[in-house]
């Protein structure tokens, strides 16, 4: 029974480690989706002059993992008299909390607050470009660390389980 208990503990800890590793991979996927969404947004604004709410909806359609962010902004924009900048800040805050995103990402996304307002396309695009560059940098850093981080979480899970099993036995 003790052996079985110890085995279960190791397996559970291993799964926890695997879950944490999957979360790291998901965050990278989220970043990729954000980049796709911003690319669509930029094309809609710069080339098609689509109004912001419709552009947000299209970006949501193109980036399923980040759809909630873009669709949330489109919903906010539908409220009469809603200023786009504060609306974006609110949506980003809500989305980052729900996705448990921390580090630099919320800050990078919040920079777009200044992009949404009564501006010409060139001004909006400049802001989008900057945020795209920062996101690409963030993605590349995360991607470079991903293998190490995933391995770390897996080892941590199994080793943590083994340690706990040894201590409890």
């Amino acid at each position, binding site marked *: 029974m003790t052996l079985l208990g110890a085995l279960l503990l190791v397996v559970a800890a291993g799964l926890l480690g695997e879950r944490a590793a999957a979360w790291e991979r998901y965050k990278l996927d989220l970043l990729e989706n954000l980049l796709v969404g911003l690319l669509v947004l930029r094309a809609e*604004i710069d080339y098609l*002059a*689509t*109004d*912001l*709410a419709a*552009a947000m909806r299209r970006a949501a359609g193109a980036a399923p993992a980040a759809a909630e962010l873009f669709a949330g902004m489109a919903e906010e*924009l539908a409220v*009469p*008299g809603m*200023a*786009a900048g504060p609306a974006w800040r609110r949506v980003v805050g809500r989305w980052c909390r729900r996705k448990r995103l921390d580090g630099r990402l919320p800050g990078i996304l919040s920079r777009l607050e200044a992009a*949404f*307002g*009564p*501006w*010409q*396309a060139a001004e*909006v695009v400049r802001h989008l470009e900057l945020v795209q560059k920062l996101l690409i940098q963030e993605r590349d850093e995360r991607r470079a660390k991903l293998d190490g981080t995933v391995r770390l979480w897996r080892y941590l899970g199994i080793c943590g389980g083994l340690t706990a099993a040894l201590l409890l036995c």
Partner: protein
Amino acid sequence: MHSSLEEVLNYFPPVLKDALAALPPSVQNRLEEVRLRRGRPAAAVSGGREFFLGPSGVARTPEGAISCSEPLMSAFLEAVSRASLYAYAEQVRRGYITLPGGHRLGLAGEAVLSGGEVRTIKHIGGFNLRLAREIKGAADKILPGLLAEGRLCHTLIVSPPGSGKTTLLRDLARQISNGVEALGLPGCKVAIADERSEIAACYRGEPQLDVGRRTDVLDGCPKAEAIMMLIRAMSPEVLITDEIGSEADGRALEEALHCGITLVVTAHGASGEDICRRPVIERLVRSGGLERLVFLSRRRGPGTLEGVFTLSKAAGGHNIRPMPAISAAITAVGGSRV
């Protein structure tokens, strides 16, 4: 509250929204314009009378009026453009934005030129929101005078700015397009060359004002070009356009005449003398391209009908000479009051 005001109220920042909502119903119902100028008091025009907007409606003094601060102006522009000013780039270049409902926001600011042409307006510091007022039946009195033997005559409507030319033209388009059974006028295919989006007030290609069931609108296109495109593509029976004046307009209208299309057009002018100075109009009259002249003024408010006149070729006229009075000018071209 009047529906026109209701349609635009949400664009205004709360302080202005409250001020407009607090106006007496009689003022709201006749509201024509709301003017915002950066750093200066907010103003409005109702029934031809201008006044300043205070926190609780009409301000007694300019000092007691709401000052149009930078954040207020910015919030207004953002609301009007739905945070998508870039989507209105072409309209901004032309100095206005057409809003849902056909309302028009005039813009003042710093023009950015490129190759001698206005590329855009930056540092927008003045707005003039003109509320669209559709007056169905505005042409009821005039339309019978524009018919001869059951046929619509080539017509020129002349008036000073703000005298109801476009309102009249819009209602004429609606009635001609739908047909008027009582006058024996069947519905016609109407085409409108609406360069400044004033007649049909198109928003995303859709007329916001009723211009009739059989009406096609080419919006935002230079008149002369629009007329040629409409002739080629839409085969209209009646062609309607606003504020003719340039040589190119004249050539395009002559082309329409040669195609057997009936013209209903307008021009700015306060008197017969004014229209006589326009070579394009003179040429159209000479070629029989204008059979009826309608004069409007603001004498008893916008849309005061001064008269509908007929121009008779047989009178050997068609040689418009400068005349100070309308009737004298008409007589000079062998015309008479209808």
